[in-house]
């Protein structure tokens, strides 16, 4: 459906941003899908252990992190909308906002890790923590990577690197960030809630 209020959206034949990033988005989604399925299958032969330790996770920080990432994805989308109107400074402000939320995610997640490590939990404690730490730390590193990209794009936008007719870079960074959020949308319920 064509929304009349927002900018007229015309049908495109390629996803927003550089096609190369989309190739790697698919590769990353594949890796995470494999890790999720292996988690779910490995859980089957030790359900009590998984459920027991899942209860001990701090679900409210998981909630907070989900809200933070969804909101940061929203900020990034507003940034893309802004650059489409040629408003580079507004775009970079939205991007820096998303970057800040990303940093908040790292803080919340970092606090969780600190709590675990303080309790002597490592990759080798048991199967649940092996998967929990592998999955969440692999995603954690992707948030860091996404923030590096967002910062680069925001910096370039601030200095007039993009315009209403040339903003593929912003869309590329946005697509990668959305992928990082998409992965967390599945990771949170899978690891924190489902038992």
């Amino acid at each position, binding site marked *: 459906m064509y*929304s009349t*209020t*927002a900018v007229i*959206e*015309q*049908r*495109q*034949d*390629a*996803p*927003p941003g550089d096609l190369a990033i*989309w190739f790697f988005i*698919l590769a990353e*989604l594949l890796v995470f*899908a494999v890790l*999720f*399925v292996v988690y*779910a*299958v490995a*859980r*089957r032969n030790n359900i009590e252990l998984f459920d027991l330790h899942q*209860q001990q996770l701090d*679900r*409210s920080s*998981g*909630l907070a992190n*989900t*809200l933070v990432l*969804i*909101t940061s*994805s*929203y900020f*990034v*989308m*507003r940034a*893309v*909308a*802004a650059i489409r109107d040629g*408003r580079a400074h*507004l775009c970079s*402000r*939205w991007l820096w*906002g998303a970057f800040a939320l990303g940093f908040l995610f790292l803080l919340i997640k970092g606090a969780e890790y600190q709590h675990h490590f303080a309790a002597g939990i490592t990759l080798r404690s048991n199967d649940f923590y092996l998967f929990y730490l592998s999955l969440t730390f692999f995603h954690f590193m992707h948030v860091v990577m996404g923030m590096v990209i967002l910062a680069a794009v925001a910096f370039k936008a601030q200095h007039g690197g993009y315009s209403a007719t040339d903003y593929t870079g912003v*869309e590329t960074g946005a*697509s990668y960030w*959305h*992928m990082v*959020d*998409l992965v967390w*949308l*599945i990771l*949170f*319920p*899978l690891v*924190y*809630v*489902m*038992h």
Partner: protein
Amino acid sequence: MMSKAATALRPCTAIWLLMVALTFVTWAVGRFGLSGSGLKLGVLAIALFKGHLLADHFMGLRRVRSFWRPLLSAYLLLLGAALAAAFIL
């Protein structure tokens, strides 16, 4: 920081709020320790739906003609089916 707040709610803002709401629902399920396979599927369905919303609106695949949108939808469905099977069977 918000630009002159668009009076009419932008479609994407509506989507954002919906996803926030769905997140609270998922959290609530976990919080109150509800269980049973129905809820497991429910939580998983919510996650997939949120993923679909994100892919469609935030990633902008809704406006893309070629195979990308069905590809992402298929990804979410297949992954969801596999996880559901692993949790239910």
